[in-house]
């Protein structure tokens, strides 16, 4: 169902000639644009060897930043999964009041910017509860914000997964005497999580990208490391080399996660006999930036 089949018939000779012309023109335009960009970069000396050397000298900072990014990602993932399970359980509760409250909570966390939540935990919490002040670090604020936001998004994903399970599963679970919580724990959630694993891994990509928000609360992760390196005189103020290196690291990390999600999805298709319903669409949740 490619878009090209929808729009274009097989090209005839005139169309092929026209496409050839546009192709050559595009190559020319791109070459011109890339050349002019590189010219501007190089003429200002932004990509000089001295600056790249500067970045290489600062490799310890980059490594430390990468370590902190990974640390925040792992902690936030674990916390987010916990939050997601709690929120999903709440949304599927028997009592209507509990359901309404948890739905409101999920909508609340999804409607607010992540930055606002992180700021709340970093600036607001210590003033709110002075006793906790020594506990609040940038890492805590970042992980708390990430966990709440991604937890609520994951709970939506889990809910879609639970909805997509055949009704017979829950009916059989109740038939053998399991209670709601037990049915969820032993029968439904394992299947839902397995079915939603590609989507959850895609959410991981969002989580790793959002650890960069630690920059705003002075958590020393990759983007802070790049910021430190770019503003160091002794390294030659290497803005572009540092930012490019950090961007490449993020690209490698996220592409790896993306491939993991794709592999999981492929495995899913081989294992499950169920046709994927509209509910299980791995791309809708995570790919909105």
């Amino acid at each position, binding site marked *: 169902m490619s878009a090209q089949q929808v*729009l274009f018939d097989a090209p005839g000779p005139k169309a092929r000639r026209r496409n050839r012309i546009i192709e050559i023109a595009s190559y020319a335009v791109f070459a011109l644009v890339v050349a002019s960009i590189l010219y501007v970069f190089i003429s200002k000396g932004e990509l000089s060897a001295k600056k790249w050397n500067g970045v290489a000298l600062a490799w310890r900072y980059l490594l430390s930043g990468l370590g902190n990014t990974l640390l925040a990602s792992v902690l936030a993932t674990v916390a987010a999964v916990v939050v997601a399970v709690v929120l999903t359980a709440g949304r599927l509760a028997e009592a209507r009041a509990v359901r309404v409250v948890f739905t409101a909570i999920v909508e*609340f966390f999804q409607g607010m910017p992540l*930055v*606002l939540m992180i700021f709340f935990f970093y600036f*607001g919490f210590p003033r709110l509860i002075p006793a906790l002040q020594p506990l609040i670090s940038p890492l805590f604020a970042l992980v708390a914000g990430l966990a709440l936001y991604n937890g609520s998004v994951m709970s939506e994903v889990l809910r879609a997964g639970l909805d997509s399970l055949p009704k017979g599963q829950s009916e059989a679970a109740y038939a053998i005497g399991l209670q709601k919580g037990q049915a969820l724990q032993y029968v439904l959630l394992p299947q839902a999580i397995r079915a939603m694993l590609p989507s959850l891994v895609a959410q991981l*990509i969002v989580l790793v990208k959002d650890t960069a928000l630690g920059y705003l609360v002075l958590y020393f992760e990759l983007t802070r490391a790049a910021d430190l390196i770019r503003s160091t005189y002794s390294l030659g103020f290497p803005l572009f080399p540092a930012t490019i290196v950090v961007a490449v690291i993020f690209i490698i990390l996220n592409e790896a996660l*993306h491939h993991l999600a794709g592999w999981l999805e492929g495995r899913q298709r081989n294992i499950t006999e169920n046709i994927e319903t509209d509910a299980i669409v791995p791309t809708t949740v995570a790919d*909105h930036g």
Partner: protein
Amino acid sequence: MSMQQMPAQREQTRNKQAAPPPPTKGGGGAKVVVAMVVGLVLLGILLALLLIGAGFFKVGFDFERLGIARPFVEGFSTTLLLTLCSGLGSVLVGALLAVMAVSPIPVLVRASSLYVRLMRNVPLLVVFLFVVFGLPRLGVFLFQDNPRAQYFTLAVITMVSYTCAFVCEAIRSGFNTVPPGQAEAARAIGMNFTQTLGQVVLPQAFRAVVPPLGSTLIAMTKNTAIAGGFSVAEATSVSKPLVEQGYNVLIVFGIIAVGYLCITLPTSRVVAVFEKKAKVIR
């Protein structure tokens, strides 16, 4: 005789009962034009208010009279302005990227998909670092005499560069929901490219594009909060000085949160309603 009509008479009565309705008066087109003009005027008023609130236009209004509300007004005006400008820009550029992605020219397809992959993997903050710190280094100086406008424009450029990739993905996914049989049928009855696109493909694609596009724009609204870290006085960044001045934490953050919810919740409701109404049962 009345019950047994001749076939010709039966034909006549049937035709009389099935007489075509009288043609609609020419008021239909005019109503749409009036609605659009009213909409544009309202938009213009909203823009003027936002520009004044954000401090780009100096009018005689003494902002100090607002007292404590002043940072909130300024912050949310800037946020809304940032959202509108970035939204418009990213939809335009994203549409261009989508056109490149579905064109029959391999170079354009590869370029567009490369750019989208880049923006999917790189955090928005890194793009901010590139643009806000990088462009002045490269000699691109905007609004040197007006730092507020300078940082605002840099933020808009960043958000457009980042969000256009996701808009392109949303539009492409909308195109992919249209079955190729539609276009084949259109071509089979002799429609040319413009007709196929305008009368068959785009109306169907438009319906499928709106939900993911709405989600992308809501995510972009929330991403504008990051601009607060780069000298743009938008809603989230007012929380820090206010809290440090001693105002109640819960109230300050509560007001800002409610403000954001007022923007995102109605938008997602509207998108959901549209999605339900425009659902195509195949």
